[in-house]
């Protein structure tokens, strides 16, 4: 057991902190408040910058040009990006930690070179598409189909709430290849955004994370060759679960970053704002809120690191550990952002205030990649399996 990163790891993270503070933090409010086109441009340029500096490839394995430093060390960096700009964080990691994951793990060499390597360099942006209008938390209920078409496939259906959907260069898509096959009846495909029959024009404006473009993907007789299939036919569901697990860890880190951003705003405010002749931090109604926020962040970070570490070591408890981290940090972010608004009072109720943005950004955490409700059911089922008679 060891609760510390090495000096080298920490020094690396410090360099990353300076970079995100200098290049990404100043535009966070602008991203939230500008037009879709402007937002997309800024986020895309951030993505490119992160790629050029080598910060998109931390967790990926060396086989795909990654740094092979694992999920745990990745969280150290990622929470810094999430803290300064949740939109950039989400857009970047929906690509690197979700869309690329099944390709890295189960794709062939050509697919890895074409999609993963380019994404990790910041050149292409991927999306991971699972949810459909009628099926979110129930992935077995998806309807999008991929039928055999010569030696290729033809896709029909609709995916929604796809992060990076409207701006993606490629999408990793789960589709039914054997009806009534259940978990063994789905396959995972890489669809190039230029493919005929692929439509990603519908954008959904969101409450928060406004710079991480969310939208629908529509497939109308979308024909792809055999090279689009990831891994084996009818094995896609399991592959997709790997992406989801990685996405849940990323969502936890995102929530952790938002929580930190909240405390970083509220603490100086409480120390400088005067009311009734004293700084408001001198009131326990304020200072105890700050203490609660800190405790949530500190504990949340441990749960995140514990989950990431279990991914790296292949621990049997990885699933439950990731669920614990996601539930705790996402609910913590909601609470912290609410308390942050409270510490600022009316000022934070005004659009354009960073606490107002964080309040909206935070709300995604408890929903995305399996809501808290589903995570809790999974945790309980795991217990029943372990201790049930």
């Amino acid at each position, binding site marked *: 057991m060891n609760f510390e990163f090495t000096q080298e790891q920490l020094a690396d993270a410090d360099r990353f902190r300076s970079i995100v503070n200098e290049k990404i933090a100043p535009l966070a409010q602008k991203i939230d408040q500008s037009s879709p086109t402007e937002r997309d441009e800024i986020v895309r340029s951030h993505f490119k910058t992160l790629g050029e500096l080598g910060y998109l490839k931390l967790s990926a394995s060396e086989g795909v040009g990654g740094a092979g430093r694992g999920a745990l060390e990745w969280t150290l960096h990622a929470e810094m990006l999430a803290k300064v700009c949740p939109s950039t964080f989400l857009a970047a990691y929906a690509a690197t930690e979700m869309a690329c994951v099944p390709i890295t793990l189960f794709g062939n060499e050509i697919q890895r070179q074409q999609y993963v390597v380019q994404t990790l360099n910041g050149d292409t942006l991927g999306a991971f598409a699972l949810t459909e209008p009628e099926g979110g938390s129930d992935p077995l209920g998806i309807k999008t189909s991929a039928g055999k078409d010569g030696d290729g496939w033809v896709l029909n259906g609709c995916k929604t709430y796809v992060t990076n959907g409207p701006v993606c260069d490629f999408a990793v898509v789960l589709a039914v290849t054997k009806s009534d096959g259940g978990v063994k009846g789905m396959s995972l495909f890489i669809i190039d955004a230029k493919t005929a029959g692929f439509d990603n024009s519908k954008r959904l404006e969101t409450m928060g994370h406004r710079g991480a473009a969310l939208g629908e993907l529509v497939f109308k007789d979308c024909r792809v060759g055999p090279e689009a299939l990831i891994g084996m036919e009818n094995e896609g569901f399991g592959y997709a679960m790997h992406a989801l697990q990685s996405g849940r860890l990323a969502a936890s880190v995102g929530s952790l970053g938002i929580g930190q951003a909240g405390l970083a705003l509220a603490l100086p405010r409480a120390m400088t704002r005067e009311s009734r002749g004293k700084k408001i931090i001198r009131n326990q109604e304020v200072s105890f809120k700050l203490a609660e926020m800190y405790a949530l962040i500190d504990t949340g970070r441990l749960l995140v690191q514990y989950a990431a570490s279990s991914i790296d070591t292949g621990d049997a408890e990885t699933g439950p550990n990731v669920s614990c981290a996601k539930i705790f940090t996402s609910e913590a972010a909601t609470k912290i952002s609410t308390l942050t608004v409270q510490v600022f009072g009316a000022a934070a109720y005004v659009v354009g205030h960073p606490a107002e943005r964080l309040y909206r950004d935070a709300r995604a955490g408890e929903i995305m990649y399996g809501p808290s409700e589903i995570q809790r*059911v999974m945790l309980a089922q795991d217990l*029943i399996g372990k201790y049930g008679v």
Partner: protein
Amino acid sequence: MDFELSPEQRAFRDTVVRFCEDKIAPHAEKADRTCEFSYEAFYEMGKFGLLGLHYPEEYGGQEADILTSVMAGEAMGLGGADGGLLLAWGAHTYLCGDTILKHGTDEQKKKYLPKIAKGEWIGAMALTEPGAGSDAASIKTSAAKKDGKWILNGSKTFITNAPIADVMVVYAVTDASAGYGGMSGFIVEKDAPGYSVGKPFHKMGMNSSQTSEVFFDNCEIPESNLLGMEGAGFMMILQTLEWDRSALMAPFIGSMEKSIRSCTRYTLERRQFNKPIADFQAVQRKLADMVIYRNAVRLLVYRVAWNKDQGRMLNHLEAAVAKLYAADEGFRMAYEAVQIYGGYGYIHEYPVERAFRDARLGSIGGGTSEVQKLIISKILAQEAK
């Protein structure tokens, strides 16, 4: 960074769990009901080595590291499920014994520690007074030197183990004008003239431990019973927090683990509306939360222990968060366990009922949850300056 326990650490934890299931758990319910301290179980703990795990061998210990001590506490919470006995264990081994180990002279260590480690003598620590709880620096009990002796006057309250203690570490004011630097620690034996203890309080929980007032009426102790440097008392109290926030919080982890196991089984056995209540999501939510907070508290408490094992000063931020969550969430989970058991959970015979009453002390004893928040917010403000 890694969170793996070694196979030896796991094996040790399992051994302690089995020992406690065998020697402690069978008596826990009766001890709670009769409010009796079990000398027999305590002596068994001594024989097993649990009363001085980290003490040097020459004083009857096993020189275990702090993480091991924490795992022992966790294992005792899980296997023994006797909150009171563990409260007694903490006051005896750490608040009393470890303070003597850290600050005592060779003679003091030789005299007291082997007896404490064996459980032959029972130790206690007296700080809190009727008028001084969270504001520990405001204690009034005084100690003055006279004719080669220390004369103590004043009273203490809520002192764990006081009614049964053979030796007690007592904090008193030696220089009323020196504030934090005017407190000193003393070793008081039960036969000291002018020393007396009150009747055991009838408590809400932790009933297998004995708690009472302590009175010093011109209590005379030898000059050599000063513990540590004169004026260093407050610093010594702060040092005991290292244990208070690690080993003493560890039973909460074990207790949560025990709740998780028994509640999971119960929710599968108990049927309502023609199905096990485990099928209801409102019940599942409680089980899931128990897992989340067990993991959280375990990580927080282990971190305090690990840092201490690296030879570092106590990080008060980390320690305060650990105490806050172990106490508050430990209690909340004990509450949920009662809720899962329903009417049965309200009956004395069911361990969740006792665990619920025991857990309530967490956010009061050893620094309230409010004090933890005070500490956290003060450090945050200092660091931000």
